[in-house]
Structures are given as C-alpha cells and as structure tokens.
C-alpha cells in the first residue's frame, strides 16, 4: 500500500511554500493523503495548486500581468506568420550575438577545465619569463602558499608508427598533473616518481591527437611515440575539454621537462600554480612577489586568477578583432530590432480600431504599452531561445572549421554556450524588447482617438515605419561597404604579395636581452650567422631586425632639425642580395664595419624621392637617432627598391636601412636562412643553433617566410569572410524590412490602386508606383548610409592593408548592390498591386 506521498511533489510543495508553513502544509497533505489511502495524482494536483498561488498575478506587484501574458500569447498564436517572422529575425541576430558572447566569454572569463579552477593562478613577469629551469627545480617545493608547476611550449615533429606530423608540445614539470589535476580519459598522468624511473619516458596525448591519429583506440597505452629524437611511451589521454594551460592554444602532447631540459639548462620557464589549501590569493601573490624579486628584481611579477585566454596575453591580441566583431554584431541586432519594431507597428496599424476602442473605454496608455512590452518580451524570449540554438550550432561549425586554419591562436577557440552566455543573451533580449516596443508606444500616443475610431489610417505610423526602414538600409549599407572594402583589400593583398623573395626561406627570431653588452651581442649574432651558414643544405643566411615590416627609428637631414620618427630596419650587409631587393642607385652595405664607424645609410625609393626631391640622395648626410644628444651622423650610400612593409599592399612609406655591423638595433633579430629544399626540414638545426647562442639569447618562433605570408593572408580572408557573412545577414534582415513596408503600403492602398486602375492606369504605371516607393526609401537609406559609412570605415583602417577606407569602388558597388536588392524586395509587392481587381477593390469599399 502506498502510504508515502510522491517525494518530488512533496519537495516541490516545500519549495513553493517555503518557511515554517512548508512544514504545516506538507504535514496537512500527508495526513490527508494517508486518510484518502493514497492517490499520487491527487497529491500532484495539490502541489500544482500551491504553484498557482505562488505565481498568481494577484500576489505580484503588477496586477493583470498574467492577463497581459495570456493576451500576448493568444495574439501570437493567432498570427503565427507574424510571430514566426519576428522570432526568426531576432533568432538570426541573437545567434550571431550568442556566438560572439561565447567567444568573449572564452577570451575573458572561462576557467581552465580542471577541478577547483578558481584556485589556479597565472604568474607573469612583465618583459620576461618567470625563472630558469634550475631555479624552478630548487624552489618549487619551498612555496608555502601554492603548488607550482612549470610549462613551456614548443612546436615539434612527432612520429607515430611511420607517420610524422607537426605537434604543439607542452613541456611541463612532472608535478603538472598534481597541480592542475586535469584527469585522463584513459591511462594516467606522469608524476615526479617517473623522473627517476628507468625506461622510455612517458607522454600524455591530447584527445584530439588520440582521435585523429590513433582512431580513439583504447589500447594505445604503452605505444611508442618519437619526439625530439627519443622514444616516449604513451601513458595517458587527456580529457576532451583539456587543451593545456594556455588557452586558446591547443596542445597535442605533454612531456616531462626533465626529458628535454638538462638540470643546468638556462632556458626560462613559465609558472602555473594552484593555491595551497587554506591559502588566499593575496598571500600567494605576496609570496610570489618576494621570490620573484629575489630571482630577478628588474622585471616585476604579476599574478592573476587564471581565466580567459592565457596565451601571451591572448585577450589583448584579439582586441581589434573583438572590437570589430562586437560593433558588427550589435549592428545586426539593431537591424533585427528595427525589423521587429516595424512588424509591431504594422500589427498596431491593423489593430488600430481595437486599440482606440479600448483606450476610449478607459484603458490607460501605460497599460496598453505594458501589453506591447509583454508581447515584445515573448517574441524576444523566442528569439533568445532560437538564438542560443543557432549560436550553439554556429559555434560547433566554427569549432570544426577553425582547427584547420594556419594561425594557432585560432585553432583552440571554443564556443560553449554556458550560463554566462545565456544570461548575457537574455539581457540583450530584454534590452531589444524594450527597444523595439518603444516606437509603438510613441505612435500609439500620437494617434488621435477620433481619427483612429473612424478608421483613418495612421499616416504618422506609416511615416515612422518608413523612417525605420531608411535607418535599416543605412545600417546594412554600412556593413556592406565594410565587407566590400575588406574584399577589395584581400584581392589587392593577393595580387601584390610581399615584394621580396619568400620561397625556401626560414627564419628564427632571437633576442639578445638588454643587459648584454653591445660588443658581446654583436659577437653572438655573428657567431649564429656563421654557424647557420655552415648547416649542410643552407645556401645563405642573413640577419634583419624585422623580416616583415619595419621598426621605429628617427632621422633628420641636419643637426639643427629635430629627429623625425621614421620607419627603419637594421640588416646584415648581404640582406638585400639574399632577399632579392635590388639596389637602384649607389651600393649595398660593405661586409665590414664596427659600432664606432660613421654609419652608412641606405634609403628606399620613397624616402629618396620625398626627402631629396632633386634625385640627389646619394652622399647626403643623415642624422640617425631619436635623442638629439645620442644621434650619429650617417651618410646615404644607396637607394633600394621599395618593399611592402608593415603589411602587404601598404603604400610604401619612407624607410631607411642601417648596417647591423654599425648599429646594434635593440637586440631583436631574425636569423633568415635560404635552403636547398623544403625549408621546414631545416627548422630543427636552425633552432639548435639559435638555442646554442649563449645564455643571454632568448629564442622565439621558427617559421618559413611563405607560412608567415600565408597566415597574414588568412587573417584578411577570415575577417572578410566573417564580416561578409554578417553583412549578408544584415542585408537579408533589411530586405525583409523593405519588403514588409512596401507590401504593407500596397495592402493599405488597395482601394486607391483599384480606383486608379478603374480610371485607366496601366498595370505598368501601378507597378512603377510601388517600385518607386521602395526605391525612394532605399535612396534615402543609401544617402544616410554613405554618410554613416564615411564616419565608420575609419575604424577599419588597420584591417585594410593600405587600401584607402574611402575606396570609391567599394562604396559604389555596395550602393548599387543595395539598389538591386531593394528592387527585388519591392518587386513582389508591386506585382501583387498590378493584380488588384478594380471591381473587387471598389466593392470592398
């Protein structure tokens, strides 16, 4: 016999009633339940009655809200076309915003996917890496307030079976898993105990590598994997969500640092730490600051909670893209809101009579507005829900597409819809609902009751709708122009490319830190160059301060003149020869020189033309240096052909070169080699040489010049693609807006059209009349849009690779495209107008 009531229902009642009353009510129910001898359905009915009371409108602040809700729901159910159109418009805009929000979430807020992520801290030093590997080994057990692990990332070739492929490796201290506790899908992480164990060292592989290279087979544990010329054994597979300690960069493998770094290796390592039990963030920060100051007092340490993008201040790197995307997504949402506002206005026009009647019977304007607002909120809620679904799928599609892009920063991007995204989108939904219900509130206030009751169409409302359509056209035209500009920039970049040789060339960038004496740095760099040339298969090698683009230097033509900031580059004498940049006048640098010489200067064509317009640059003096007291006088010895600097396709700026032998630059140099075959095969020897450059030399990326070019092209393509997609969406929304307004005016003017046709207007006239209406709106929109674009496209300057933001072709194409779209959008209503049967239209009267 069932003598106990359903637990879930009882819990529901307790929650609904709350407080001590919950006890009394459930007690009563239990007593009655026992007296009835059961009846689960009865019990649930009672629970629902509590819910009805709990949520009843009379208990709330606003009486009648429930009524409004029912009314709005009924309106939407009765006009499914209208409800669906509004929701789809909103869902499209909300979808892109959901994707943007989830992106922002992962840039700024998302924690590492490990237990207690709030207790993970990231330790950074401004301008340097935390400590060297031996320093870490001696101090990591002495922290009182935290457990610390190190990590260091490297790109390498891994070999599984006979297949070799490129991987991102996180070289970590063996206590990494004890600190982060990421867990595994199968197998185990290595521990400090493995450091002293014999045999092949362990490696943990990522879920992605496991699935792509090993088909996700469960018997991979113990399989050999070749890396850095030694054999590792797979010890475990990381969980799918864990991609290493540096989101968004995706790591493929984790190996213990002791297997690649000798105990005396001067390589510097990053710190990642977990607060010790009971310790606070502040205590940990204080302790780290003391320790860090002891190791290196020149570079202060900063401690953060680990959240968002941790890779090289990734959130800063994404800043321009984020700003652009936020602006564009907000614009799309605004256009969608205007669309829905238009729809609401046209609904209001249909219901004018009813609304006026209610108003004359005593319904307050506030009450009518609240009704609109409730309807708007319902539409918006639908938009948000569909938007979250759309955003989820967009995110999934991006996650599938992005790992194949050549820029590692984008490969690990994750678009997860979590509660923060939902909350933000909900807020956007509420804001939108208020935004698109406002116009109707104003319109309703202005319509005279008398006129409305007599059935005169509200011309104020139509005018308002036209105004919104104009705004919509203007906004979407701005996006279209921006897209056109980016596409033009892309074509130009692909057309031009860098104006120096990039094939078979590989570079590694190194930095002789500031405290290195200049002579020693020179010596180190010369040594690097010689050893690079000695690598078998390397045809030549050179050094340049900047391989792509240029740095900031200063120069002046006389001692009296103040130094002028100018682009400059510091290069090895054979640079021009190796990069195939011809010297047009004079000569290249001599392969000898010292830091005490009077510096020789080579200028580019643009500089020669602008600074010495008479064509006599050769032999002229040039004061080089940004501080008047420290500058040196040099002499122009040659004029080199312009190269695209800063970005491909830039209009060349004045630029001058100094010889590396006569000027130390700022210690940053790229060592470029020209190889006999595929340059990537020389990555390892090049890296070895760079790493053997001495204790003061830090090594950054190794990359082939072709890859670098490909990456920067890819960024333009990506931006143009995303902006183009959003632009298309905006146009679609705006076209729906134009269609709606024109179609609605045709419906309202049916009688007038009928009369016109009855007195002899040809279908073509009527057709044109309607079409002209649409075109008039579009023309106004384009006029406003052009002005708006002129103001907005300045923001794009950084993305255009030298193309003027006021490129007339882009503006013209976009405007023409919009006119075509407007024609199309008004075509269908116009055709409907020509089919009006005069008799029927007049009978309707």
């Amino acid at each position, binding site marked *: 016999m069932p003598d106990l009531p359903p637990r879930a229902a009882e819990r529901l*009642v307790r929650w609904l*009633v709350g407080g*001590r*009353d919950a*006890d*009394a*009510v*459930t*007690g*009563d*129910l*239990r*007593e*009655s339940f026992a*007296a009835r001898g059961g009846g689960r359905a009865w019990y649930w*009915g*009672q629970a*629902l*009655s*509590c*819910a*009805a*009371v*709990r949520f*009843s409108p009379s*208990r709330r602040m606003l009486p009648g809200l429930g009524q409004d809700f029912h009314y709005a729901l009924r309106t939407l159910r009765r006009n499914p076309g209208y409800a669906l159109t509004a929701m789809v418009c909103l869902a499209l805009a909300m979808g892109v915003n959901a994707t943007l929000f989830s992106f922002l979430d992962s840039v700024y807020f998302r924690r590492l996917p490990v237990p207690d992520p709030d207790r993970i801290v990231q330790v950074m030093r401004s301008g340097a890496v935390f400590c060297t590997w031996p320093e870490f080994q001696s101090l990591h057990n002495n922290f009182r307030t935290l457990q610390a692990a190190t990590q260091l990332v490297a790109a390498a070739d891994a070999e599984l079976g006979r297949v070799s492929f490129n991987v991102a490796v996180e070289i970590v201290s063996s206590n990494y898993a004890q600190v982060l506790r990421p867990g595994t899908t199968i197998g185990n992480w290595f521990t400090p105990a493995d450091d002293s164990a014999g045999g092949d060292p362990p490696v943990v592989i990522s879920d992605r590598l496991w699935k792509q290279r090993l088909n996700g087979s469960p018997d991979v544990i113990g399989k050999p994997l070749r890396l850095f010329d030694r054999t590792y054994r797979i010890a475990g597979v990381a969980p799918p969500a864990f991609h290493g300690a540096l989101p968004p960069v995706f790591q493929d493998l984790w190996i213990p640092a002791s297997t690649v770094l000798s105990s005396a290796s001067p390589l510097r390592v990053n710190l990642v730490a977990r607060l010790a039990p009971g310790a606070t963030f502040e205590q940990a920060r204080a302790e780290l600051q003391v320790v860090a100051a002891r190791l290196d007092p020149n570079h202060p340490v900063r401690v953060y909670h680990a959240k968002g993008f941790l890779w090289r201040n990734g959130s800063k790197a994404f800043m321009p893209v984020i700003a652009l995307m936020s602006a564009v997504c907000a614009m799309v949402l605004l256009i969608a809101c205007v669309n829905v506002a238009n729809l609401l206005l046209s609904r209001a026009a249909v219901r004018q009579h009813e609304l006026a009647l209610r108003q004359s019977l005593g319904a307050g304007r506030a009450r009518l507005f609240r009704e609109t607002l409730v309807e708007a909120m319902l539409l918006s809620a639908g938009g948000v829900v569909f938007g979250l679904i759309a955003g989820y799928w967009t995110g999934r599609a991006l996650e599938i597409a992005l790992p194949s892009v050549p820029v590692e920063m984008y490969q690990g991007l994750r678009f997860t819809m979590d509660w923060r995204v939902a909350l933000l989108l909900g807020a956007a939904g509420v804001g939108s609902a208020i935004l698109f219900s406002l116009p109707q509130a104003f319109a309703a206030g202005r319509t005279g009751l008398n006129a409305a009751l007599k059935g005169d169409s509200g011309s104020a409302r139509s005018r308002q709708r036209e105004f919104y359509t104009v705004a919509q056209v203007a906004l979407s035209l701005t996006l279209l122009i921006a897209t056109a500009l980016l596409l033009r920039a892309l074509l130009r970049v692909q057309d031009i490319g860098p104006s120096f040789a990039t094939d078979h060339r590989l570079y590694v960038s190194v930095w002789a830190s500031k405290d290195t004496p200049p002579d020693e740095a020179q010596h180190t760099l010369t040594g690097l160059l010689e050893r690079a040339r000695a690598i078998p298969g390397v045809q030549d090698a050179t050094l340049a301060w900047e391989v792509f683009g240029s740095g900031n230097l200063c120069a002046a033509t006389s001692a009296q003149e103040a130094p002028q900031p100018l682009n400059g580059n510091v290069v090895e004498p054979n640079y021009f020869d190796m990069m195939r940049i011809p010297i047009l006048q004079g000569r290249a640098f001599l392969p000898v020189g010292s830091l005490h010489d009077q510096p020789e200067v080579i200028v580019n064509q643009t500089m020669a033309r602008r600074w010495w317009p008479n064509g006599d640059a050769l032999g002229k003096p040039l004061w080089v240096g940004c501080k008047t007291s420290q500058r040196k006088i040099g002499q122009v010895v040659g004029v080199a052909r312009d190269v695209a600097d800063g970005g491909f396709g830039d209009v060349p700026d004045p630029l001058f070169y100094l010889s590396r032998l006569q000027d130390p630059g700022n210690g940053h140099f790229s060592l470029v080699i020209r190889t006999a075959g595929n340059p990537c095969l020389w990555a390892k020897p090049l890296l070895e040489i760079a790493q053997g450059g001495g204790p003061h030399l830090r090594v950054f990326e190794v990359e082939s010049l072709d890859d670098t070019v490909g990456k920067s092209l890819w960024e333009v393509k990506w931006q143009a693609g995303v902006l183009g997609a959003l632009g298309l969406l905006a146009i679609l929304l705006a076209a729906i807006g134009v269609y709606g307004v024109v179609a609605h005016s045709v419906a309202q003017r049916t009688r007038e059209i009928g009369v016109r046709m009855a007195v002899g207007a040809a279908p073509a006239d009527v057709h044109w009349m309607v079409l002209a209406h649409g075109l008039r709106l579009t023309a106004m929109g384009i006029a406003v849009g052009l002005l708006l674009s002129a103001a907005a496209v300045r923001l794009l300057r950084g993305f255009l690779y030298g193309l003027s933001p006021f490129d007339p072709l882009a503006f013209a194409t976009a405007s023409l495209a919009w006119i075509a779209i407007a024609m199309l959008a008004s075509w269908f209503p116009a055709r409907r107008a020509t089919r009006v049967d005069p008799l029927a239209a007049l009978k309707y009267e």
Partner: protein
Amino acid sequence: MPAAYLGEFEQIVLLAVLRLGDGAYGVPIRQEIAERAGRPVTVGALYATLDRLESKGLVHSWFADPTPQRGGRSKRYFRLLPKGTEALAESRTMLQNMWRGIRLNKEDSRA
C-alpha cells in the same frame, strides 16, 4: 464603518475556523468546507486565503508541536480574532439586509 469586506470564500473559511474551535488546522478545515459547502478545496487556495485573512488581522495562527503521525511535521492552528468575528457579523447583516423581502420560489413570488 465596515470592519473589512469579505469575499464569499473568505466567509466560508472564517466560518469553518469558527465552527472547529480549538481543532482548526488545515486538514479539518478543508474537510469541514468539503462536507458542509460541498466543494473541494485545494491546499494552495486554502493557505493563500488564510494568509490573506491573517494579514488583514482577522485570524491568528500558531504552530503546534510536531506530532509523529504526520511524519514529524507541526500543525498550523487558526483562531478567529475579534475583528474576524466582527467582519463575519457584518457580512451576515449585509446579506440579510439584501435578502429582506426577496422570494425566489415560483409559488412565493405568485403569492
């Protein structure tokens, strides 16, 4: 001046509490209403009404000690306050005044 205006259901609930005297808590109140007025009452509706009456100062409630036969849950007892009795009396007077001289029966109206 009327003490408080009472709705029909409020009157029924007050009367039930009055009839039950010291034993007025949820279960018997609902039973009383079901038997005498012939209409089933949900827990939610009853407590919502009783809460409203209490906030108007017509009834007083208190929690009794928990008893084992209800799974250790306490009962909430209700008692009419003087203002409640007054309101009931007023409602009755009002209704009686309204009814005076009215006959609904066919025969009565013919007479």
